[in-house]
């Protein structure tokens, strides 16, 4: 629901490609993530078995989604949490805003949640006149910059340390004493400490919704989720309905995959289950807990060929290993979720007409599916969008004509032979010394690389001539 940049995808990608600082920032983070994930998987020989199990758990939940939603609702209510249901992003925003306004909330702290971004929570809170403080360090950075996340695990990965220092210089009072990461992190710690303790409401997402206990689970490395959810009077959780797991043990089975795939660690520093508000006698905790269960396209995915995408546990491994993401970064995608998983989800959320480039801007190399901890066949799902885009006439006329003409030829082998017999010598006229450096209508190729000059005679013609000679 983040309003995508007005520029078309290709223009956004081109701008990103022209930014050497961005490239450096992407390489540092994704390169690290790739190496650390590989090491974590190598150190866990049971990873494949764990992955098969994780996939089966998610499939099981999706196959009984209504059952687990009702079970979760029942158990969360039994712990004193109030469960709300939102069919779409607008309903979800309205529910959260209503809770905030009813509580007369002035200051809201928020622990990073991609679902919150998906439903446009930051804008909704601003529109309601509520001060929002992002507490995840990366979210804090992009809040100061007025940006959207560019990665689902490292939302500020597009910013270098120098750029962060600039933001903190004006955004922190007093500004950090130095520009090294340790000093800047310390400065953010000091800045946010008072916000944590004076917030009226804390909003978090959920990595898991545990059906049999009614608990929501957050995982963080910073400890900001607990500082966001404990001191305020009210804790609001917004979560997609696909986050359900049958039990805590199932959550752990998925957590082993999630952390290794996301950061290459084995466990996040803080894995916290939140079951309802403060109990009588509890030393601290919120007086109210609200859980907003959000559909926003998920039941649509359940009903069609994108059901497997509901397995996604938001680890970000697909984007860390994507050659396209690693060149253009997250913002160029223009949706809430970037990279391969985002290219499957954005057409669901923003419509295919507005996002048809995303499933097409993929080389189909399959590396995303190879590293996906729950075995989502991302290229297959991207191809499904391409099919739909073709069927709905959303593909540009030049591509339709090109593919159509070529297919007409390829469907007629004799004509095809004839075309190569005429075409190859013609094409060769553009060549010099074995290479073609400029070719009309083929600028997409020759702008960037040379084209090997075709053969004077096709294989099939040469072969036929040889066969005749033999006889």
């Amino acid at each position, binding site marked *: 629901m983040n309003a995508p940049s007005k520029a078309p995808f290709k223009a956004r990608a081109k701008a990103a490609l022209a930014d050497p600082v961005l490239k450096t920032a992407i390489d540092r983070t994704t390169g690290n993530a790739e190496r650390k994930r590989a090491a974590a998987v190598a150190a866990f020989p049971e990873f494949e078995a764990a992955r098969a199990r994780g996939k089966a758990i998610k499939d099981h939940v999706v196959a009984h989604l209504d*059952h687990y939603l009702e079970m979760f609702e029942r158990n969360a209510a039994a712990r004193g949490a109030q469960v709300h249901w939102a069919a779409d992003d607008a309903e979800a925003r309205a529910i959260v805003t209503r809770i905030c306004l009813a509580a007369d909330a002035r200051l809201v702290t928020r622990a990073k949640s991609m679902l919150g971004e998906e439903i446009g929570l930051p804008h909704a809170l601003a529109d309601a006149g509520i001060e929002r403080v992002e507490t995840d360090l990366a979210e804090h950075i992009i809040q100061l910059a007025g940006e959207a996340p560019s990665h689902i695990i490292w939302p500020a990965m597009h910013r270098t340390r120098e750029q962060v220092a600039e933001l903190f210089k004006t955004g922190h009072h007093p500004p950090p004493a130095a520009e090294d990461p340790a000093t800047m992190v310390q400065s*953010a710690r000091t800045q946010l400490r008072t916000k944590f303790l004076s917030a009226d409401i804390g909003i978090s997402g959920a990595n898991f919704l545990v059906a049999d206990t009614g608990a929501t689970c957050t995982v963080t490395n910073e400890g900001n989720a607990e500082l966001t959810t404990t001191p305020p009077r009210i804790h609001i959780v917004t979560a997609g309905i696909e986050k359900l797991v049958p039990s805590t043990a199932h959550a752990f089975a998925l957590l082993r995959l999630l952390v290794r795939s996301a950061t290459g660690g084995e466990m996040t*520093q803080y894995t916290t289950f939140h079951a309802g508000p403060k*109990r009588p006698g509890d030393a601290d905790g919120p007086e109210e807990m609200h859980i907003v269960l959000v559909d926003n396209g998920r039941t649509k995915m359940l009903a069609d060929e994108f059901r497997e995408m509901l397995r996604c546990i938001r680890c970000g491994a697909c984007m860390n290993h994507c050659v396209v993401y690693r060149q253009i970064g997250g913002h160029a995608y223009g949706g809430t979720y970037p990279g391969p998983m985002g290219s499957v989800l954005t057409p669901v959320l923003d419509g295919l007409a507005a996002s048809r480039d995303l499933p097409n801007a993929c080389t189909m190399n399959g590396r995303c599916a190879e590293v996906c901890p729950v075995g989502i066949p991302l290229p297959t799902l991207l191809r499904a969008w391409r099919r739909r885009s073709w069927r709905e006439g959303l593909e540009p006329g030049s591509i339709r004509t090109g593919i159509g003409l070529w297919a007409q030829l390829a469907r007629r082998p004799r004509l095809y032979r004839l075309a190569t017999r005429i075409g190859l010598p013609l094409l060769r006229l553009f060549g010099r010394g074995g290479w073609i450096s400029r070719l009309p209508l083929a600028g997409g190729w020759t702008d960037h690389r040379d084209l090997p000059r075709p053969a004077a005679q096709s294989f099939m013609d040469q072969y036929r001539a040889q066969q005749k000679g033999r006889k």
Partner: protein
Amino acid sequence: MTARDRILSAIRTALGPGKPPAQIAAEAAALLDPAGIARPHLVAPVLPDAFALKATALGTTIDRVASMADLPQAMARYLDAHGLPPRFAMQPAPELAALDWQGLAPHQGTAPDEPTALGLALCGIAESGSLVIHSGPDNPILMSFLPLHHVAVLRESTLLPYLEDYAARLSAQAVPRNAILITGPSGTTDIEGSYVRGAHGPGFLHVILIADAGTEPG
């Protein structure tokens, strides 16, 4: 129709008729069986060693002592080694209050910039080097998050081998408001991937491991 009805009815239309709850529960349980094939092995044959290896790899420091009576001395050692003041926040637990804290000054309540806090871990998990704390009347959650130094007392007798063992224990008892697994000091890699400790939570996690295995009930 409410949003709830619309969502559930869309799901049921997509999925068709459901199975009996008992069958779903049996299928869910079968998904985790056997546990051993899809989880990491412990890194040492005995639980305290396995726990300690995992925890220290993540930057947690460990002091192994013989009994609870050694706790004040161990605490004094830690404070001294880090140049910390003798004043520290202490969990309001009777078994901590009962100890002789001579020379140190434990107090209740955790200030926003509290240097050090001392609390009891409910149990530990050897697989991951995690500590577990549960919220409750004598266990404020913020005590484990506000200080720069978090010192946790962990009895060896409470160590569990795997995450599933803790899950089983959690489901067998009343679920607390907050159940937290703490695995190493707070950290972030949000600026250029550089690892920095103490992002919001404690920058130092110190575990005083009490060698009580077999001598006290767990």
